[in-house]
């Protein structure tokens, strides 16, 4: 399994302008009781690794944030919502809640340029680079979980163009403005595509195993699934726990661990081709947390206070990437070609 390190000039303000972000958090407080109050049964097993959740890590550790309670799996260290929610309510939250409307009008509109340049375009060029290793016919069919679109399973869209990835790339990188050569429609139940993509969409599912089996069902043999995910085993999430900026309910109902997600992908029938953590923001977020008076471990506190020159911070972030310890994960899964095996 390969991994990469990538250095991009992403800053916290590029994805999370503070005033607007706080506005979003305020609206979440209003919305969550409406969409996430109705709870299903409590989880008995970890949705990532399937181990019993009575084995918590450390025993009894759980925390509640925005009215949603999380536990950390004692087997795989994933952080997962303790209770199940009603799927139609989750979908309603993403399609009609004030929070999401605010997100689209205030945050997306202010950050789309930076997001496109610093997140989506690098994502697409990564995918384009990786495609060199595979023999796909000229006309690829691609589906995407559009990150700025509402909905869950319905959010997976299929792009049909004179289809190549470049046409698709332009549609990813321009968000909703699709070129004329590209038609897009909701993927149908039995439709299969060569490539699935998701930028930061997976964490919205409360049942990641279901999301991955859905993905493998909708891929042709030999197909690829490119996605990003927030991880529980990034330094930011490990250090800050409940205070982590990455633990953001209900946008993220589960944060898989590096190891747990690999096991989950294998269980779903995927081969993990690449799993990198090319995040850029762990150090910045830890510094931010320190300024806000959140609790950090003595080691990190010492580092932030005494090794604060730019090169040290860069080296720190680079080391996190090399050790797959950033909270931002980038994954390529391959559905094995039945013909070959």
């Amino acid at each position, binding site marked *: *399994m*390969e*991994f*990469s*390190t*990538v*250095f*991009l*000039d992403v800053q916290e303000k590029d994805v999370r302008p503070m005033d607007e972000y706080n506005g979003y958090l305020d609206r979440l407080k209003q919305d969550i009781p409406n969409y996430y109050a109705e709870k299903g049964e409590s989880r008995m097993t970890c949705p990532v690794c399937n181990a019993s959740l009575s084995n918590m890590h450390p025993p009894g550790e759980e925390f509640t944030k925005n009215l949603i309670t999380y536990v950390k799996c004692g087997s795989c260290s994933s952080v997962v919502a303790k209770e199940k929610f009603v799927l139609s309510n989750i979908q309603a939250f993403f399609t009609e809640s004030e929070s999401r409307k605010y997100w689209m009008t205030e945050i997306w509109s202010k950050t789309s340029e930076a997001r496109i340049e610093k997140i989506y375009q690098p994502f697409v060029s*990564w995918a384009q*680079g990786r495609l*060199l*290793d595979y023999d796909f016919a000229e006309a690829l069919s691609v589906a995407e979980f559009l990150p700025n679109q509402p909905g869950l399973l319905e959010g997976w869209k299929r792009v049909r163009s004179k289809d190549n990835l470049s046409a698709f790339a332009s549609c990813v990188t321009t968000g909703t403005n699709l070129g004329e050569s590209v038609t897009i429609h909701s993927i149908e139940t039995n439709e299969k595509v060569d490539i699935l993509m998701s930028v930061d969409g997976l964490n919205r599912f409360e049942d990641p195993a279901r999301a991955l089996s859905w993905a493998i069902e909708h891929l042709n043999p030999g197909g690829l699934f490119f996605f990003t995910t927030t991880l529980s085993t990034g330094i930011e999430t490990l250090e800050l726990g409940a205070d982590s900026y990455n633990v953001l309910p209900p946008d993220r109902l589960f944060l898989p661990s590096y190891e747990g997600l690999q096991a989950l992908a294998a269980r779903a029938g995927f081969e993990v081709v690449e799993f990198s953590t090319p995040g850029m923001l762990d150090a910045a977020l830890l510094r931010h947390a320190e300024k806000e008076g959140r609790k950090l471990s003595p080691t990190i506190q010492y580092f932030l206070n005494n090794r604060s020159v730019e090169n040290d911070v860069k080296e720190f972030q680079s080391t996190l990437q*090399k050790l797959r310890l950033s909270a931002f994960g980038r994954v390529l899964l391959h559905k094995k070609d039945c013909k070959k095996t």
Partner: protein
Amino acid sequence: MPVKCAILGFGYMGEIRLREMRESELFEPVLVCEPDPEKRAKLSGVEISDDPEQIFRNDIDAVFVCTPNDKIPDFTCRALKAGKHVFAEKPPGRSYQDIKDIIAVEEECSDRKLMFGFNHRYHPGMQRAKKIIDKKSLGRVLWVRGLYGKSGGKNFASSWRNKKEVSGGGILLDQGIHMLDLFNFFCEPFNEVKAFTSDAYWQFELEDNAFVILKNPEGQNAMLHSSATFWKHRFQIDIGLEEGYLTVQGFLSKSGSYGRETLIIGRKQFEDETDAIGNPSEEIIYFDKDLSWQIEMEKFADCVLNDRPVTDSTSAHALAAMEIVHKAYVDSSTKNIDSARQN
């Protein structure tokens, strides 16, 4: 039906070939011939012989010639003439003449397949770099620079590799030739060659360091430092292109001593000339699986089993790499004579 194989020579390479054959359904190792009883004692599960003439038997389809350099041309040619397909390790003999002789025999035996063990081409870093180059996403290759070397070691002095009558050349022929093959893999063939060599440390009368500078008709330049005095195992190839650069650093090997294999992809970054950023952000890919042996042997099996022409690691590739080595030796010996005269 798998390819029924004989392995001639059970040293470092013979062991690798047998291991790969056992992992693959495409090969059936029938026989291993090895003169050294100690090495033979390590073998089981396959017929073992000390008689190299056994490789010409009728039940053998293909011969893997894994001998020291001095034996490669003779066995390769005789095996081809005996109707065997041949996979020969690099270098293809001790001299430029050796590979030319092999090619002459190959031309007489055009229904047999002949391939050489330039496995570095099939390393994951090189394969990815090649795809990026062929796709032209970073433009045309302008230049290539390679460093390849090792530390010698306790048994280095007694190795056949350092006996001129057996090996025919020093570190350039033994290890540097892989890098020259990679230069030819990434660029158009190189025809102009300048070189300096020395044997200042090991004094085997074979070069322990070679500096080779190359040029081809397309104006691409290349430079190699091949060394047996790096005092660490080191592999690095830098490829400069119009829109960026690629570096393969480290090299997946059995011992892991060349470090983790990585491909660095850098993209040129400047909007205008006053705003050139001399340190662009790089993507670094870390590889962990070396499939090079498997890939090259499967290619060979595919040619044999499906009667396809050999297109990778061909005798022409071997000839091109040997031509550079030959020209480098000629150029450096001329200079040595010149400087000796001046003294």
